[in-house]
């Protein structure tokens, strides 16, 4: 973050005094080393105590991370994009009052026209309206599937990694079985029997096949974190399992989960598109970027705009989530501050 705005200045000043403090300490340590234990020790605490009273309130990892995020432009931009997406997913008619199912075959594949800035697709539907209305299905699939996968995978993986034993062995073998299921074939088999034309069967299918990936990553990083001495120290203090897991292990094991989950979010939206293209995801009266992308791909040379707008919307969404994940991960690592 080299282009920090002026609000960063006071921060730097604080760091400056901190450095001075560290040097003072070095001097104090040196004098104790020389073997005059009474001298500097007896005067030191008095001065220190008076300044202790004026100290600010205690900070924690989360409050520091939030302070950090608020001035991170990457976070602000991606959060803004995501907020916008969520708003249009809830109320698409705010910016696209038209009906995405009102199509005019006579204008099929036409380019942009007044009132129709993105042009028309192969069925003569307005691409702008369909792209805006398609956000709901795609964002729902992406966000819900990622949340489900991340929650299920990291909770199971975290518990398996932390407690180990027979349940860990069983769960780990179960992930091997799920990894062996081919995604597209599994989707064709499982989703072809579903009659509901909502996003939820697709979300459920993605969670079912996606959790083992996060499970493995979470399990591995929890095992790595639990062997650290600070976890032993917490145990020696008498900390409960939930305290150790939530305060010591989770913050140190969450980074790889965030990275993989945000990248997976994009692939889940693309997977919804793939399944819709194969006819087992959402079916045509529904509107989604996946359906539009697959419908537009056969005539991409004649009407590229019908493909580019929904695909661009998809790319921006995925990028926003990945950048958000990166920013959150960095903010949770004090070493990067």
């Amino acid at each position, binding site marked *: 973050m080299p282009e920090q705005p002026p609000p960063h200045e006071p921060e730097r000043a604080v760091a400056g005094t*901190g450095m001075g*403090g560290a040097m*003072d*300490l070095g001097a*104090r*340590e040196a004098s*104790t*080393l020389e073997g005059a*234990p009474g001298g500097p*020790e007896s005067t*030191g*605490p008095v001065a*220190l*105590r008076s*300044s*202790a009273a004026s*100290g*600010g309130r*205690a*900070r*924690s*990892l989360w409050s*520091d991370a939030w302070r950090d995020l608020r001035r991170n432009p990457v976070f602000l931009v991606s959060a803004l994009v995501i907020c916008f997406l969520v708003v249009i997913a809830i109320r698409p008619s705010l910016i696209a009052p038209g009906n995405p199912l009102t199509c005019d075959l006579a204008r099929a594949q036409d380019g942009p026209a007044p009132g129709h800035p993105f042009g028309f697709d192969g069925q003569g539907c307005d691409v702008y309206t369909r792209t805006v209305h398609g956000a709901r299905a795609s964002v729902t699939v992406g966000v819900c599937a990622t949340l489900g996968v991340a929650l299920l995978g990291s909770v199971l993986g975290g518990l398996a990694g932390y407690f180990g034993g*027979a349940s860990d*062995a*069983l769960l780990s*073998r179960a992930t091997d079985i799920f990894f062996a299921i081919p995604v597209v074939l599994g989707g064709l088999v499982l989703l072809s029997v579903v009659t509901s034309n909502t996003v939820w069967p697709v979300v459920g299918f993605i969670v079912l096949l996606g959790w083992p990936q996060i499970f493995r990553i979470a399990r591995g990083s929890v095992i790595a974190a639990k062997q*650290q*001495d*600070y976890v*032993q*120290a*917490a*145990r*020696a*203090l*008498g*900390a*409960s399992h939930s*305290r150790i897991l939530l*305060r*010591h292990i989770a*913050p*140190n094991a969450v980074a790889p989960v965030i990275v993989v989950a945000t990248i997976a979010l994009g692939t889940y939206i693309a997977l919804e598109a793939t399944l819709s293209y194969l006819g087992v995801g959402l079916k045509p009266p529904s509107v989604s970027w996946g359906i539009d992308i697959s419908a537009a791909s056969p005539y991409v040379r004649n009407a590229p705009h019908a493909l580019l707008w929904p695909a661009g919307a998809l790319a921006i969404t995925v990028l926003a989530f990945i950048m958000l994940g990166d920013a959150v991960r960095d903010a*949770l*690592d*004090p*070493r990067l*501050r």
Partner: protein
Amino acid sequence: MAEPILEVRGLVKHYPLTRGVLFKKQIGEVRAVDGVDFTLDRGETLGIVGESGCGKSTVAKTLCNLERPTAGEIRYRGEDITRLSGKALKAVRRNIQMVFQDPYTSLNPRMTVGDIIGEPYEIHPEVAPKGDRHRKVRELLDVVGLDPEYVNRYPHQFSGGQRQRIGIARALALRPEIVVADEPVSALDVSVQAQVINLMERLQTEFELSYVFIAHDLSVVRHISDRVGVMYLGRIVEIGTDEQIYEHPTHPYTQALLSAVPVPDPDARERRERIILSGDVPSPTDIPSGCRFRTRCWKARERCALEVPPLAVPAEFRYDTGPQVHDSACHFAAERQVVPPRERDAGGDSSTRAH
């Protein structure tokens, strides 16, 4: 002074070696600690030395209830603490705390120093009322020689020595009676080692602590310890006061260890003889019969393979008095001067101690 606060009797920790994924089969065991006895008196520092892999750290972990011993007892104020759980265990943990070897992994990198030192109070809320904790944390930082203004910093902003001070502050937060220090200075460079050792000595008098101080560096242990136990392959082979172990060692392993300590005086270095042990430490999965040191001992005879030497005053010194009379697990214990006698100058023995 001689009131025992911690008694360890027949402490054993074996780790099973298993094979198989779901159906595990035991194919052997690592005998990390294999019958350790010692007593720690109130206000005393007991040093434990030995090579890497001799079970020192496992002893430390069982003392702090981080590992449950396979057999044996650890009596804290007369009560066996090895089988405790729940509330009773939590209460004992308040009184036995640990300082870890590596200051870089023993502090959670995602917690502020204030949170790290304050966590003991959150776990044991009865120790300090909520409003008081912030002040106590600052006091602790001050006690270990750090600026209380550092509460909101993260561990990576400190040097190794400062981090170890934070670890010590955390261990002291609950006002324990016993602190188990597992190689607390091994990861620090020499000048910082001295500062941390001196700090620990100061805190010992200030907080009336008893230390179990584990290290592989003989001179560091000598500097801080009142008594010293020498471990080899999961057992204590010789235990006694500072003077008894360093000036009058009777166990061949202790003598070999001491003969390897660097001597700063070149003349003395010329005069002393080094005992070079042959072979490697046997694997703790396959411990020799009888005396476990016999495979590397120049004194070994048939008796050593048949009989386990007990850790007691050797028979040959039964009627003696003097510093050579102390517990030594050897059938053929004999005194042997390995460290060249010091120059007995006016300052006496304590001021010339190396560290």
